[in-house]
């Protein structure tokens, strides 16, 4: 820490870099001792792999088939739907679009949310305005508004991504801001202010790395919430009719009136949603526990 007292940006950087691998290793050591965390990570990785290699697992479900509403069998692992399409293929390609929606919506929400958060924390005058805006957004009834916007604009992948991002960033912003506020008051940030006149540099070099763990947790949680919301919208018929998603499989099962006869049309997409949301939640809890010295017991 001597280098920090010397108050040169370069040495502060060096200390940061030197500390980071040690902290990361401690976090990883703690994380890997948590079987639930590992399980969640494997599950998420599996879903990502399924999304990436979907064409190798099944051919794209389109048109119609002759075997209508058949239960799971060797030919159709997850059975067939009311138009004779393979539910397994629908779930596989649904993974792809669910992941895409999650990634798109999360990326946008994180970029907006983090930008607003660090600016609010660093520039006090911004905080007043953005604080009110974030409070306003957080008090809105999100689901009805999402339904309204999606219904008015019309369903498409872009609409869904934009709608989800639009309603997700305030939460990211609130969480990251509270962490960032604590950081900007620390002496080393004051020291950095003396070293440079560029707030951007301080935000990039000091503030963002300090809040990175919170951002990581936000990414995972926002993604899982985005998948849930997207499934909800698709179930209401407001998903993209041109791409398969887990919510669309559920919506079509409901529309066909076959929900109680053909349990397989709803069980497998529901399990996929459950797997993703549980895995994301467990992963973020495990990561949070692992990086916190108080809970990792090292």
């Amino acid at each position: 820490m001597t280098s920090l007292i010397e108050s040169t940006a370069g040495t502060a950087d060096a200390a940061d870099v030197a500390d980071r691998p040690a902290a990361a290793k401690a976090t990883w050591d703690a994380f890997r001792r948590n079987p639930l965390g590992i399980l969640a990570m494997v599950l998420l990785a599996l879903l990502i792999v399924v999304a990436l290699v979907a064409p190798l697992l099944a051919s794209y479900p389109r048109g119609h088939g002759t075997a209508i509403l058949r239960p799971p069998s060797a030919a159709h692992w997850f059975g067939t739907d009311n138009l004779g399409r393979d539910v397994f293929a629908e779930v596989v390609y649904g993974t792809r679009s669910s992941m895409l929606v999650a990634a798109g919506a999360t990326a946008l929400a994180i970029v907006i949310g983090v930008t607003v958060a660090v600016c609010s924390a660093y520039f006090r005058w911004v905080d007043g305005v953005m604080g009110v805006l974030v409070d306003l957004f957080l008090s809105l009834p999100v689901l009805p508004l999402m339904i309204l916007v999606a219904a008015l604009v019309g369903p498409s992948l872009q609409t869904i991504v934009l709608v989800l991002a639009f309603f997700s960033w305030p939460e990211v912003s609130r969480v990251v801001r509270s962490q960032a506020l604590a950081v900007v008051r620390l002496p080393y940030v004051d020291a950095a202010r003396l070293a440079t006149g560029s707030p951007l540099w301080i935000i990039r070099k000091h503030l963002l790395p300090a809040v990175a763990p919170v951002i990581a947790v936000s990414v995972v949680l926002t993604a899982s919430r985005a998948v849930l919301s997207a499934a909800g919208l698709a179930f209401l018929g407001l998903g993209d009719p041109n791409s398969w998603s887990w919510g669309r499989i559920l919506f079509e099962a409901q529309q066909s009136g076959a929900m109680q006869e053909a349990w397989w049309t709803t069980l497998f997409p529901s399990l996929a949603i459950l797997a993703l949301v549980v895995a994301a939640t467990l992963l973020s809890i495990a990561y949070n526990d692992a990086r916190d010295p108080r809970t990792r017991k090292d």
Partner: protein
Amino acid sequence: MRRRAGLMAGTAAVTVLTGALGACAPSKKAAESGSGGGAELRIATTTDVVNFNPLIGNSRTDYWLTNLMYPHLLTVGNDGSKRPSLATKWGYTNPTTGFYEIRGDMKWSDGTPLTASDVAYTLNAVKKDKPSGTLYGQLANFSSAKAVSPTRVELKLSKPDATVIPEVGFWGNVVPEHVFGKAGSVAKFANNANWVSAGPFRLTKVAKGQSYTLERVTPYPFAPGGRPTVSRIVYKVYPDVNTEILALKNGDVDAIANALPPAQVQPLKKAAGITVEEVPGLGYAHLAYNMDKKPLDNVKVRQALSHAVDYDAIRKVVLQGQAVSTGSSPIMPVLKQFHDPSLQEYTFDPAMARKLLQDAGYTADGSGKFPLSFRMIYSLQDPVTAQWATLVRDDAAKAGITIKPQGLERNTYLAKTDAGDYDIYAGNFAIMDDPATNMTLTYLPKGIINYSHVDASDLSTLVTKAQATTDVNEQKKLVQAAAKLVHDQVYDNVMYTQNLYVAHRSNWTGFVVKPSELLSIVDPQSLANVKSSS
């Protein structure tokens, strides 16, 4: 007619909102014995009543409930022909004067006799106040109505129109003058309390999101001995057809008013204690190509699109064989009197579609795709259309045409339809009972359901003549010629007539089945005659 379009579009927007309440509504309660006339019939529906005023109602449940209180002058047979109901005779005394002779034995539930004055009042009030229901749409050439005796009403027309008497008689509900007359404008009267009914039932209790209770009204001339066989009808609101089917199986309801999804017909036919009734279809499903949008004004492009739909697959897979081809004609085979069997359906032939597009001057790219992309709107509350919309897209892709289906929430769908904001409109009409009337609404330039935006002088001439003539044979020739034009020029791509199925508990008998989901087994004359055997 707007209501027709809306009605068939389905129900789920309200359903979604009312679902949570509806789900906890039913409690298992065995129906009372019907032998003593004290039974209660419980019917499932998926929407609440939006309007209790039959002149402005626009959901299926509105129609089903208000029909039990406000009679129609005419009803309809399975072939679309008009049958007596409140009116016993109807017709024209000269080209601009029509008449109805009505029964003299009907009374409103408060004891006031139902007379020709009520009929005349209803028609004049609708003409004056312009409520947004179907009836007003039928009154374009109607000037005024006058009760010339307690049982005869005469209608003056502004110009000869053979469609007014049958269509107004069928679509219009007659309302009590002594109640509606005090309320001011019939377009604004909510009619949400103290209902007065001409039978067979009268609404007495409303629990929004849960149930609607109607009590028996006597005398009702269409019931045995003038007394409806059940004392009470309870409409119960359920979130969707899945929960309705579950409730029927559990015995929580005795019948489902909504048509069954095609895929559920066979399983329910096999279910113990459930009877499935076939309801003849009297409407059609169609794709309307918006001719205001280039290049859909080009007949070759429209013909190419017509050859790029696998109609057989849609009927076989989506509709489970419960639909019949109309030969790509707007006059369905069920309208035996008018149907022209010489018109053949467009074949599913992607190669032919490609050739037509090449003839129209389009060239496909290396991947076989033409530079043509169309946005097709449909209502998300219409589950059958929502299912075949994706098949239409996939079939068109085989001909190198891009179709982008856009499923919309019902109100957005209606707004976009009104604004003409679509390339292709996919939907269906519940009842298209009379070709001349339907064609004036679908194919005349200002027709209220002219979704193709067709404005062709030869077609307009034929339709206008057909509307004006009261000679049936002459009218048949004219509407058949018009149908051929529609077929050849693809002014409308009519795909099929769907036969519907409804289900009830097997211990209930005596249902009278009438065409379309609007009438089916819940028509007043049917519900006045049902019996429970246990």
